[in-house]
């Protein structure tokens, strides 16, 4: 079997990581960065910190665009693109939350296609712009932004139309996670992103066995989550815990992004789009039910016990019992988080109507490979039923 894996992202993580951003920009041969941030990030002072980190380096920001709010709109993206071209910029820095990061990625995609209008098919390719592979440097300030540093971008035209990109072209070149840039989130939001990262990492380890090249990212994420998820929910003001958790979110998403389309990701997209539910919450809910349905290979589940439980738990458990012990561990993690932040939920809480299960299942099957074991109607219905309450 031929296995292909692309690796574009560099991570700068930890104390003083930001100090190395200017050097990284320079190493890409760039010297006219455009900075995209959002209003809130500006008010929190992170923009000032970022600009201060460039002081001694001689690197100057060519132009700044500031988004209002936390979503990227088509108008924002096209305005930013024009500014980028007009100011002869050569790379993009996005600082902030989900909206700013999505805007940066959308601009990167358009520059790569040489288009000046945003759509999926580049049909507006007017030759107005020269095709440019502009490096993208992402500095997320919270957990929601951290996961946005990878391949997806969401740009709103209006309430009824959203451009959702999932492409290698959107992948950032460098992600910087520095504690001075991180911002606190309420416990429920931390729990939501933390459990999502946990579910992504576990799924990346257990979904298939041709995961040799990306499993280490998932294992690292689980190792970090094991020690930082609960402390981060309880003490999000502690900068160490929340920075560590942000790293885990990025590494888990990195691992998961290699899997491509899976039943869990497709179902989560369908449900979150239909009912305007939070994608991360739907995904982690479905995962928590899915893992109990014995669809994963027993061998891969058994191996998952090592990062989940640690070496001692792994060695002390007899080989035949490891897969079940893994499921118990996962259930314990979800139970503990639910207990702490009163986070009990089911699909019913997201407004999902049981009468729509058939349509949801059929839509998901349409997106999946027909040879895929998961693409079975009865199984999907069973999963939806189990996840309802």
């Amino acid at each position, binding site marked *: *079997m*031929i*296995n*292909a894996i692309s690796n574009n992202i*560099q991570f*700068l993580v*930890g*104390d003083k990581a930001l100090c190395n951003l200017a050097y990284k920009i320079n190493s890409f041969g760039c010297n006219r960065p455009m900075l995209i941030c959002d209003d809130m990030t500006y008010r929190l002072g992170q923009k000032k910190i970022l600009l201060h980190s460039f002081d001694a380096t001689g690197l100057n920001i060519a132009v700044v665009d500031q988004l209002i709010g936390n979503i990227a709109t088509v108008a924002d993206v096209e305005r930013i693109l024009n500014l980028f071209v007009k100011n002869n910029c050569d790379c993009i820095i996005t600082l902030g939350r989900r909206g700013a990061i999505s805007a940066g990625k959308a601009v990167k995609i358009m520059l790569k296609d040489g288009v000046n209008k945003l759509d999926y098919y580049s049909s507006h390719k007017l030759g107005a712009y020269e095709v440019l*592979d502009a490096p993208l440097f992402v500095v997320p300030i919270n957990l929601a932004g951290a996961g946005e540093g990878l391949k997806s971008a969401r740009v709103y035209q209006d309430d009824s139309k959203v451009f959702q990109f999932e492409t290698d072209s959107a992948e950032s070149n460098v992600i910087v996670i520095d504690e001075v840039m991180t911002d606190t989130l309420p416990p429920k939001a931390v729990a939501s992103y933390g459990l999502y990262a946990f579910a992504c990492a576990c799924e990346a380890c257990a979904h298939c066995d041709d995961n040799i090249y990306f499993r280490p990212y998932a294992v690292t994420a689980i190792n*970090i989550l094991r020690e930082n998820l609960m402390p981060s929910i309880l003490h999000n003001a502690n900068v160490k815990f929340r920075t560590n958790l942000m790293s885990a979110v990025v590494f888990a998403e990195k691992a998961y992004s290699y899997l491509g389309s899976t039943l869990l990701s497709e179902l989560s997209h369908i449900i979150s789009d239909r009912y305007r539910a939070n994608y991360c919450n739907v995904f982690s809910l479905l995962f928590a039910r899915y893992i109990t349905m014995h669809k994963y290979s027993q061998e891969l589940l058994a191996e998952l016990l090592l990062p989940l439980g640690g070496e001692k738990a792994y060695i002390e458990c007899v080989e035949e019992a490891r897969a079940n012990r893994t499921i118990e561990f996962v259930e314990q993690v979800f139970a503990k988080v639910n207990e702490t932040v009163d986070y009990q939920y089911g699909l019913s809480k997201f407004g999902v109507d049981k009468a729509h299960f058939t349509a949801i299942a059929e839509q998901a099957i349409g997106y999946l490979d027909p040879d895929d074991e998961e693409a079975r109607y009865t199984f999907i219905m069973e999963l939806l039923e189990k996840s309802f309450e």
Partner: protein
Amino acid sequence: MSYFEFENCARIISGENSVDTIDKELCAIGGKKVLIVTDKNIQKLPACKSIKAKIQANPALVIGAVYNNIDGASTVASIGEMYEIYRVSGCDSVLAFGGGSVIDAAKCLVLLLATQARNIFDSLGINSAIRNKKIPFGVVSTTVNGGWQASKYVTVKDTVAKKSGFIESDIMIPDFCILDPSLTMTLPEKAVVKSAVGILAYCVDAFIGKQSSILTRDFTKGALIQFNKAIRRIEQNDEGVETRAMLMEASVLCGIAYTNSMVGVSHAIARALNTLYDCDFLSAICAVTKQCLLFNFETSESDYAQMFMYVAEKEVYAATPLDKCGSGFVDYVLAAVEELGKKFGLPVTLAQLQVPIQDIDLIADEVMRNYAVLANSKTCGVDDVKTILNNCFGEV
């Protein structure tokens, strides 16, 4: 979390017959007129002909030229020749097809083209080169250790001025690296086993080094899992395509890990021996691994203990008390090197490599000039290096 940087290496395309994707991969990175860098022996292989045919069959691609005058090291002379051929024939991309020397030479060429520098020695050091131009660059490895060769390190030599230097640069990381185990089937078993020992040594340095991070450690563990599977097969005299595929996977994972952890003293010594005496790098690693492992025991016992789980038989690990796991790992590596060395005739001492014992001071100086020694887990001064080298000879 203390600061770390982590980057993955090239896009990896692995598995049997993955070389069939060569034309698509070249097109995807924007190559149109390709300079193929190889050597005379590899050029005679049927695989080389089929790669050329595959490229020629694609209407979007042309072979601009083939350069085959690689003689074991990346020399200023060969890089200059390649540069001229690339320029005169109007190529716009580079494809390395071969083993370590070929890949290293192609990396140097790409660096020179991308920086538009006059001399490759202008780029010596750590990431000192600045990219002016993007050169599409692909690698097809014919050795099992191609994964780590697709990294950002290279040693370059000027045989006329009698000087050498070490370069680390992101610019040299290829856009893609094809690891097709079927291309390695002509390799002798000794070369395969030597690579396996090399992987183990790389894993140790990547895991224990001062620059290692939580990610490099997990990539190393992944490499050790694949290494362990492969070595069990080798022990049963199975060096077939699956075993080679496992070693290739291990080499990718440990290559990613060591690229991010700046490695340690065993690398620094092996590079010095390669520079001074043209010793094959892997042979040099085999000869020094044991003493370097023992040297670092004091600072790295707990790290060794963690790695023990990934190489030992599960029952052996379970029966070993926690405080004995570190020494258990050392015993495992020493026994593996010893056994494989005997069975396949690998060098396990510097004397076997024909390194002159009276040159210890010279070698130690060269080692200290290599920054890899700074990343070693235990602080390692020139006297420590001399002691290690002495011990490597003392085993004769």
